[in-house]
């Protein structure tokens, strides 16, 4: 079972490009019709230099371009089938737009047992920087591991 020794573990940084075609697929999937995400002129009128990404898209970019999107689970010997998403947080510091190239640097910042060890919460915090070195966001995910019952 995962324990405190996992805190501080880092994983392979992920570099992801915000590509318009992939973004459109995401927008279509969610039925998102807001012109700010689809039309450059609308985005510019709102003060962006290109179309911005929707609020949760950073999470997708990291998974799409990671060579192994479940690296942290494999590295910590956690079975994908036992994992649920517990919490998710985004702090936005600067715009992320079509054409940007982002770097994600994930790191384990917390491991907490719950319900007498029946589940473990793992927090992975991921600062995100863009191609200019600007710290654009912080992404924090908490996964819930449903631990096997002791037999």
């Amino acid at each position: 079972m995962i324990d405190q020794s996992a805190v501080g573990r880092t994983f392979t940084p992920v570099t992801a490009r915000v590509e318009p075609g992939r973004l459109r697929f995401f927008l279509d999937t969610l039925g998102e019709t807001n012109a700010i995400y689809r039309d450059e002129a609308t985005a510019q009128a709102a003060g962006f230099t290109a179309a911005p990404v929707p609020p949760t898209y950073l999470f997708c970019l990291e998974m799409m371009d990671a060579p192994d999107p479940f690296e942290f689970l494999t590295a910590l010997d956690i079975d994908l089938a036992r994992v649920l998403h517990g919490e998710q947080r985004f702090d936005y510091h600067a715009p992320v737009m079509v054409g940007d190239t982002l770097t994600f640097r994930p790191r384990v910042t917390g491991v907490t047992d719950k319900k007498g060890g029946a589940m473990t919460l793992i927090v992975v915090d991921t600062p995100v920087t863009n191609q200019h070195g600007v710290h654009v966001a912080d992404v924090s995910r908490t996964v819930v591991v449903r631990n096997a019952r002791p037999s």
Partner: protein
Amino acid sequence: MSARVPSVGDIIVHKEFPPITRHRLALYCGASGDHNPIHVDIDFAKAAGFPDVFAHGMLVMGYLGQALTDAVAPSRIRSFSTRFAAITQLGAKLTCEGTVTELIEQGGEKRAKLALTTRDQNGEVKLAGEAIIAL
């Protein structure tokens, strides 16, 4: 955001979404890069102890984000967080809402704190979250 400053208690976010289908989960699997089979492969889901596939939490948060930026310009969102309170089942018809809970000064600007919820057609809370927006 309009020029009008919201008041505590105002419901400024409200949007309803069509029922979650297997097709939508398959599309989201590809569009999001989250290829966890538990959301699209019923055999995998059953082996993991679930009766069927279920929605990606991030699909549901994606809907909540959409409801949020329908009401608040993306450039004004400072933070957005949720707790995934319950699994969202196939067929769920989701309603997203956001209520102003506090007006604050932070980082040298006037901001509002919103309490966000996503509920299904039975009123069960699926996501409970918060956003901080600049006014």
